């Protein structure tokens, strides 16, 4: 009986054999406009089917991926489990930063309205820097206040007011689009930031690196040290994913690289934001040890 049946076209043979491996033969036959019995008969009438079946079956074995070693598995899982805590912490810091910014703006307005000379002078002299310093100081100033703004925040859930605040302050789309003149291209430079234990040291290190980049005629994209091997720690991607979301930043960082913080090896990542740069000091557990807004030099 099979002798009377025409062989199937190669693509149909392939689909039927593959579907057969997966127990989906009947559905495949029907989709091809054949009854399962006809499909089976015509398949059997096609030369070389047994070899093809064996070849396709063999790919399943070839696809197997070795299990991860225990240490890698442990690290991946523990990093993931720490992410909510890191996120909550970041939300708290973000809220504190926003609060600091609001207080700063209110103080400036009050100073102007009341005409308090000294405050007005400070605000006038230090327009950009004022915002930066308030931003930088807010987290440490509030750390003792037991600020619990982020309690109950679901991980990754954007909280209304603070998200709005932060969107305004760190509006990534607008920020990057309205980039600072002379800002590096949005590709990561891999640089050593040295000792960044104090806020001033971090500010100076980042400002210095920015000066260094600005002094160069920026190399073409292909020449940039993008994804240098030492940035390929597997925790980085997940860690950055949390950080950029919670800080409202746009990846990739314009610069990143190793640094020392209180004697420990850390990473510094610098992101372009609306009116400057946000520098993060990131510990090995993805905790943010310091964050500083750095105003670009004119």
């Amino acid at each position, binding site marked *: 009986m099979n002798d009377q049946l025409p062989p199937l076209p190669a693509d149909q043979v392939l689909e039927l054999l593959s579907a057969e491996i997966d127990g*989906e033969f009947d559905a495949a036959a029907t989709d091809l406009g054949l009854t399962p019995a006809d499909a089976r008969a015509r398949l059997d009438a096609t030369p070389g089917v047994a070899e093809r079946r064996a070849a396709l079956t063999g790919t399943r074995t070839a*696809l197997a*991926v070795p299990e991860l070693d225990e240490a890698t598995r442990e690290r*991946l899982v523990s990093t993931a489990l720490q992410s909510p805590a890191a996120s909550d912490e970041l939300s708290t810091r973000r809220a504190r930063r926003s609060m600091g910014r609001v207080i700063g703006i209110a103080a400036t307005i009050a100073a102007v309205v009341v005409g308090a000379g000294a405050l007005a002078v400070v605000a006038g002299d230090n327009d950009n820097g004022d915002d930066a310093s308030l931003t930088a100081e807010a987290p440490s100033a509030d750390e003792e206040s037991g600020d619990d703004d982020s309690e109950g925040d679901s991980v990754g859930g954007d909280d209304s007011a603070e998200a709005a605040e932060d969107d305004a302050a760190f509006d990534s789309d607008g920020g990057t689009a309205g980039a600072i003149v002379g800002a590096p291209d949005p590709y990561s430079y891999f640089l050593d930031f040295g000792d960044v234990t104090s806020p001033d040291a971090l500010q100076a290190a980042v400002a210095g690196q920015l000066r260094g980049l600005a002094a160069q005629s920026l190399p073409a994209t292909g020449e940039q040290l993008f994804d240098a091997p030492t940035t390929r720690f597997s925790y980085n991607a997940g860690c950055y994913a*949390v950080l950029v979301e919670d800080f409202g930043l746009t990846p990739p960082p314009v610069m990143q690289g190793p640094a020392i913080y209180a004697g420990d090896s850390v990473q510094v990542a610098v992101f372009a934001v609306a009116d400057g740069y946000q520098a993060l000091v990131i510990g090995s557990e993805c905790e943010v040890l310091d964050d500083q807004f750095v105003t670009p030099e004119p």
Partner: protein
Amino acid sequence: MGVRDERPDSELAAAAAAGDRRALEALLYRHTDRIHAICRRILANDHDALDATQEALIAVTRGIAKFDGRAQFTTWCYRVATNAALDEARRRSRRPVTMEEMPEAAHASAGPDDIVASRLDVDAGLARLSPDYRAAVALRDLADLDYAEIGQILGIPPGTVRSRIARGRAALAGLIGNQEGTPEHPTQSTP
């Protein structure tokens, strides 16, 4: 050593969704290898696969509270993994590819280490497919999902799933020498 828990996924997922951290940890340990395997085959690159695995585990951790149990945990979890891998593939397509990241050509299998050569062959075979094709094959052969589940995850009809899997397997079979010839342009969309 990771947390071991004999309870089924559904129970662990429900407990994890309710805030049981140990249950979540056990779930993550249980599925990390599979998540990694899916990412590894979609991305055909060790580094990117680890990054995507990390992203997926974080996404599971952050999203477990919203998991309502209507779908199987594995389907949901592998969807997260697939999305993480496809996102990583998209990111990779926008940045320069280093020599280390380029899949080796088939002739690399002439090397002395058969295991490594075999891995390179598989990667080279997979590299000829678009990530969407690789995803279909990986979800079937590594995650044991049926066509309907794979279709849900990838947002395509079961017939397209079947076609992608067939072409993916044929490409792989052709390259690793299990089959003569290779399929027609497997990186093109399925008709």
